């Protein structure tokens, strides 16, 4: 009898742990349906499980993050290349001002303390006055390198036109051309930048900070279309093969190739990270690494590592992974080290952890890429996990 009880308890445990076989599940259902007492017993265990979860949730949840996420989502529904955002921004302006007011006051206070200290020290040592240049969020900018080696800086307000390419400084568009000559261009986005390019076949590519793309000025009809993500992160919206006489589209990166027919996906292949992350939004892609092919379904992410080793594929939160393209940072339980890496690319700063233990603390939250780095850091600081941060030139010190 006691054994039976023990056995049922195990089944209930397996149910709450979501690790239960179909056979066990049927057995548990039968037992529950035997009488109301069993049902009540089952329910009391489930209650313990649920209440423990809730209590822990209430204890650990940071509503300030949640509020910031909501405000950020209100302000950002457009792609970062679309400027219809302006009207929207005005409507919400007062609202956002209110939302960040608390953090700004805090930053102001902090900087003030910092400044007075600095000034005092300066008076002691030298007559120079230290002025901290503000650290600005990134903007649309890139360097275009043409086949002949010439480089052109693309930046807001700078128009550039040549052959089949045209840029208003915020994006670069290649029109289809019948030229037989295959000439490769490079588009390099620096830290603190982002850029949009439409290739000659109509494929759209969003490039994140610190990224470099190699592609031909035009594609040969019916032949495989090949581009290379030399490093960094890019989001591809590939023009379908059916529009190009069946020509497939290939993205090469440091140690993997991706082949598609027409689809949307994101590739992250930074030089200072040892993994490549390929995330499929819709359609189908195949990924090849050392002659081994893997296929991705929408919502899945493949992680590849240099050298021998399997490609791991898992379902992830796609919206979070590609939110950079919509002007957001979305961190889902990421280590502070990883978060600071992402921020450092966008704000073009270096980050130093004075206390190494802090690198592994996990945070989650959504930030608007237009927020200043101080606002983002202050929100993180307000969780009390980090004691303080200091900005010294282009370096952020975290303690």
């Amino acid at each position: 009898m006691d054994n039976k009880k023990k056995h049922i308890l195990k089944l209930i445990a397996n149910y709450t742990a979501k690790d239960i076989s179909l056979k066990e599940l049927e057995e548990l259902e039968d037992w529950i349906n035997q009488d109301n007492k069993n049902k009540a017993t089952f329910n009391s265990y489930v209650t313990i499980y649920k209440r423990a979860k809730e209590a822990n949730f209430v204890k650990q949840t940071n509503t300030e993050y949640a509020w910031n996420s909501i405000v950020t989502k209100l302000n950002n529904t457009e792609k970062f290349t679309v400027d219809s955002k302006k009207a929207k921004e005005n409507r919400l302006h007062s609202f956002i001002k209110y939302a960040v007011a608390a953090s700004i006051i805090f930053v102001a206070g902090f900087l003030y303390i910092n400044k007075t200290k600095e000034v005092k020290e300066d008076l002691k040592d030298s007559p120079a006055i230290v002025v901290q240049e503000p650290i600005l969020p990134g903007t649309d900018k890139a360097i275009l390198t043409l086949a002949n080696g010439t480089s052109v800086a693309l930046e807001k307000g700078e128009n550039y036109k040549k052959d089949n390419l045209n840029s208003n400084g915020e994006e670069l568009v290649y029109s289809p051309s019948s030229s037989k000559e295959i000439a490769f261009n490079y588009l390099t986005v620096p830290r603190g930048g982002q850029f949009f390019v439409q290739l000659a076949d109509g494929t759209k590519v969003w490039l994140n900070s610190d990224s470099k793309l190699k592609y031909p000025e035009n594609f040969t009809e019916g032949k495989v279309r090949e581009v290379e993500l030399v490093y960094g992160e890019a989001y591809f919206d590939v023009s379908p093969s059916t529009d190009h006489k069946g020509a497939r589209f290939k993205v090469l990166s440091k140690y993997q190739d991706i082949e598609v027919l027409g689809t949307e996906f994101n590739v992250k292949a930074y030089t200072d990270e040892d993994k490549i992350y390929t995330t499929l939004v819709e359609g189908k892609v195949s990924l090849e690494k050392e002659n081994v092919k893997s296929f991705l379904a929408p919502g899945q992410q493949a992680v590849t590592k240099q050298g021998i080793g399997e490609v791991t594929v898992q379902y992830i939160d796609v919206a979070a992974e590609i939110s950079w393209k919509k002007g957001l940072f979305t961190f889902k339980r990421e280590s502070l080290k990883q978060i600071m890496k992402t921020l450092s690319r966008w704000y073009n700063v270096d980050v130093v952890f004075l206390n190494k233990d802090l690198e592994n603390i996990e945070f989650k939250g959504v930030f608007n890429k237009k927020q200043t780095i101080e606002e983002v850091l202050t929100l993180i600081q307000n969780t009390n996990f980090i004691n303080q941060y200091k900005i010294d030139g282009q370096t952020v010190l975290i303690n």
Partner: protein
Amino acid sequence: MNLREQEIVNRLKEEDPKAFKDLFDMFYMPLCVYSLKFSDSYDFSEDIVQDLFVTIWNKKIYLQVEGSIRSYLFKAVKNNTLQALKKKDRYNFEKLDAVVESFILEEKENDIEAIEKAQKKLLQEIEALPEKSKEVFKAIVLENLKYKEVALQLGVTVNTVKTHYSRALKKLRKSLDVIILLLLY
């Protein structure tokens, strides 16, 4: 409807952004906890509730709500949670989940003090579990880890993990007044 809610709704109707923050402060946590009763994931439930707030502001839902905003919010969270769960590849426990759901009461105005007290007691009891049971319980319930993952982490067999976990459940059920937990909220 309670006075404070009425006052927030009135200010919302005048498009006062501060009222929106007040609405958030008042309802965010209780709504997340309510959603958690149906779902099993913190991130999932927080997303549901955050999206609801975004919709309320963007679509000016507050202009349309008749009657109590509280019951509107809780109903919306329940519907959205169940709908999103259906879309999500949910493990197929439908019959048992229905049993569990039948015990979930419609949200009512709660005795917050009593709830906080019960939660504190529950967390204390978890801390008071024997070391291994505690570790296993926390990994499975609070971090959503699978038996296999916990086994790997602790360097023990899956069976040992299962045993520790059922023991923890049993111990907690003994030391807590489950009836209170059940009826409280």
